[in-house]
């Protein structure tokens, strides 16, 4: 026991960070039931910063360090990672887990470290007047629910009265997030909502799909992650549910999720808040500066996949925010507080995206003190099983702000009351 402690003490002394570099940790999960989704994201995230270091010499002349910490999508390991990363003075954290995000929000607010949770986390963090340190642009779960319903409206000619929509969700904070929104939307549009929770990790969903078979919903919306995705899509194929009426959130729309179901998954739809495929100039740069030099993260076999692109996109937004923060602070060595100012002044236009080698990849992002979540635009992609590719079938769809804004205000006000915060940005 004493020996153990002594050994632990020495190990922790040695792992001290190099100062002066920009530290952007990669809280990844390459093990456990969510690894299939965690690996491509972590690779994309790391590769983008490697590209910046190799091609541009970092950001504003400062190299970016990306220390990795394995969370296994587990909140206790997440705490351990947070504590060990915090000693290295990170600029921003991106835990890729709604559970860990919920846990970190009070801590990072206390410690003053920005948290960037693109497309996941606590939806009401969009309200920057309450959540000073949390950013969830370009889109959040409620945006996703609203966009999915808008797409269904579009398919049904604008009328959903008397229709039935089932929500198959991961029975956790993540999966429960959209329920409120969908309930409000069902009132507004007159459809019936059937909620079907699936317990983590989600390998066992026979009874839920039996119920879908019995209830015959017109559409199924799914909020799943990790192994639950593959199982759900396979089950849907088994009960011959029409795939084009099965819409996943963006976390249920990667290649790994649909491939296992083979040809049966043809036509499955998922939301996304960015473009798909390798057909962007950025990949040429990645090829020359990262892959060809053998610097790719992980096994290097994920380039161009949906989640790889998403990881790279998250890194891109962070890199832009760092550049903005450096510009505002007038120094390349920025603090986490300056990083937050950089996020709040972030303005990634369509032209800027083209400059960065990703034309028409993501919607423009403009943040401010009270808007930490952007506009919430998302588009629909559809799986082509024969070619093994996703294709974008809609343009960016705007979520229903009329429903979402009051919900966000309500939830953030509840948090502010609970945590004893007063609104800022006045």
């Amino acid at each position, binding site marked *: *026991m004493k020996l*153990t*402690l002594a*050994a*632990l003490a020495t*190990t*922790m002394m*040695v*792992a001290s960070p190099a100062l002066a570099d920009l530290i952007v940790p990669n809280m*990844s999960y*390459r*093990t456990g039931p969510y*690894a299939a989704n965690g*690996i491509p994201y972590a690779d994309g995230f790391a590769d983008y910063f490697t590209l910046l270091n190799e091609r541009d010499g970092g950001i504003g002349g400062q190299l970016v360090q990306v220390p*990795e*910490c*394995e969370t*296994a999508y*587990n*909140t*206790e390991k997440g*705490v*351990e990672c*947070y*504590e*060990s990363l*915090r*000693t290295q003075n990170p600029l921003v954290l991106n835990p890729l887990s*709604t*559970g860990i995000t*919920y*846990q970190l*929000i*009070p*801590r990072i*607010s*206390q*410690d003053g470290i920005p948290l960037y949770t693109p497309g996941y986390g*606590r*939806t*009401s963090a969009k309200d920057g007047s309450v959540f000073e340190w949390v950013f969830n642009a370009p889109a959040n779960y409620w945006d996703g629910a609203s966009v999915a319903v808008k797409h269904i409206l579009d398919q049904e000619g604008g009328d959903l009265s008397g229709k039935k929509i089932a929500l198959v969700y991961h*029975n*956790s*904070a*993540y999966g*429960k*997030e959209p*329920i*409120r929104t969908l309930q409000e939307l069902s009132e507004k549009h007159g459809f019936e909502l059937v909620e079907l*929770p699936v*317990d*983590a990790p989600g390998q066992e969903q026979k009874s839920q799909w039996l119920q879908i078979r019995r209830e015959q919903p017109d559409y199924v919306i799914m909020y799943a992650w990790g192994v639950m995705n593959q199982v759900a899509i396979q089950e849907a194929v088994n009960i011959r549910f029409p795939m084009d009426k099965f819409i996943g959130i963006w976390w249920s729309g990667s290649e790994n999720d649909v491939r296992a179901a083979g040809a049966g998954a043809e036509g499955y739809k998922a939301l996304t808040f960015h473009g798909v495929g390798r057909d962007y100039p950025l990949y040429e740069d990645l090829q020359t500066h990262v892959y060809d030099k053998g610097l790719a993260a*992980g096994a290097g076999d994920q380039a161009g996949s949906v989640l790889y692109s998403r990881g790279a996109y998250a890194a891109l937004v962070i890199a832009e925010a760092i550049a903005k923060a450096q510009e505002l602070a007038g120094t390349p060595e920025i603090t986490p507080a300056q990083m937050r100012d950089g996020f709040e002044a972030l303005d990634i236009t369509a032209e800027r995206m083209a400059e960065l080698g990703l034309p028409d990849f993501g919607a423009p992002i403009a943040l401010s003190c009270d808007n930490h979540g952007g506009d919430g635009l998302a588009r629909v992609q559809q799986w082509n099983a024969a070619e093994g590719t996703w294709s974008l079938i809609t343009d960016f769809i705007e979520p229903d702000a009329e429903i979402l804004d009051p919900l966000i205000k309500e*939830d953030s006000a*509840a948090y502010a009351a*609970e*945590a*004893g915060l007063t609104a800022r940005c006045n």
Partner: protein
Amino acid sequence: MIYREAGDFKTSYRDDSQTFPIRLDRWGYYAIMAVAFGIIPFVINDYWANAVLVPFLIYAIAALGLNVLTGYAGQVSLGTGGFMAVGAYAVYKLMTSFPDVSIVIHILLAGGITAGVGVLFGLPSLRIKGFYLAVATLAAQFFLVWLFNKVPWFYNYSASGQITSPTRTVFDQAVTGPAATAPAKYLICLVFAFALAWLARNLTRGSLGRKWMAIRDMDIAAEIIGVNPLRAKLSAFAVSSFFIGIAGALLFAVYLGAAEVGEAFGINKSFLVLFMIIIGGLGSIFGSFAGAAFLVLLPVLLKNFLVGNMGWPTDLAAHIELMIVGALIVTFLIVEPHGLARLWRLAKDKLRLWPFPH
């Protein structure tokens, strides 16, 4: 030579029956307590508190609780995760409903509520035992997790079903919530662990503990010599659940700060605590601490060593870590099926004779 009983004379029955009859043991115990209470709080940092010592102390409390039930009273339970969830949700409801009452009282009440629930789920133990009882407690595990997921009242109707612990103070020092400092978190867990270990040690030495052990060793014989199995079994469930409820309350309020029942208190937690007492040693107070230390500290140590010192990729380290911990568990159980506590006892026996083994 150094560690010996010779010359350690006792002049009263009281001295003779104290917890640590050997002088060196006693000094060691005082020294550890002095370090734990007098030195560590002044030098502890956030990493040591949140990643190492706080989880260790909390799991040690849970292991103590399960050890009372499984190690001393012989009732196998797989419901630990569910009972910890009861403690966590009880303390959450109490903290948010009565914000002015001290958190210490809330944690104790949460333990009490869990004791009640534990007794309820302990009722089947009067009719069934062994594996059958394990299945009945497994039902408790699944039922309780389902309940806390299903009924929004338990999580105060929050949109995501997460419970988040607000800031509460003891002597004006925040012990829960984001403002809690490392020494405050550590000390509240240490005080509970110390008090509960002291309680467990004395309960198991007294008539109640003897009744539990009589039931464990042979329930029919125990009944014949006058042990009431109803009282003995249900008191074991109550005491055990009280400990586990406190561990759950601390796990949520002090350590995690936010929790979600399926993830934080799933069946994995039941197995983890069960492994702790099997590796540490059934029916041993020291074993509960040793088992918790083994399963909480070793992964953190290995992670820091493999990733921090050796610079291995995180995924490889995580896999190797699982393999090393698994292999060590198997090795320990082959070498000493009665756990670390038994190894410790053997070591002490050898030390008493050393260096003259004959």
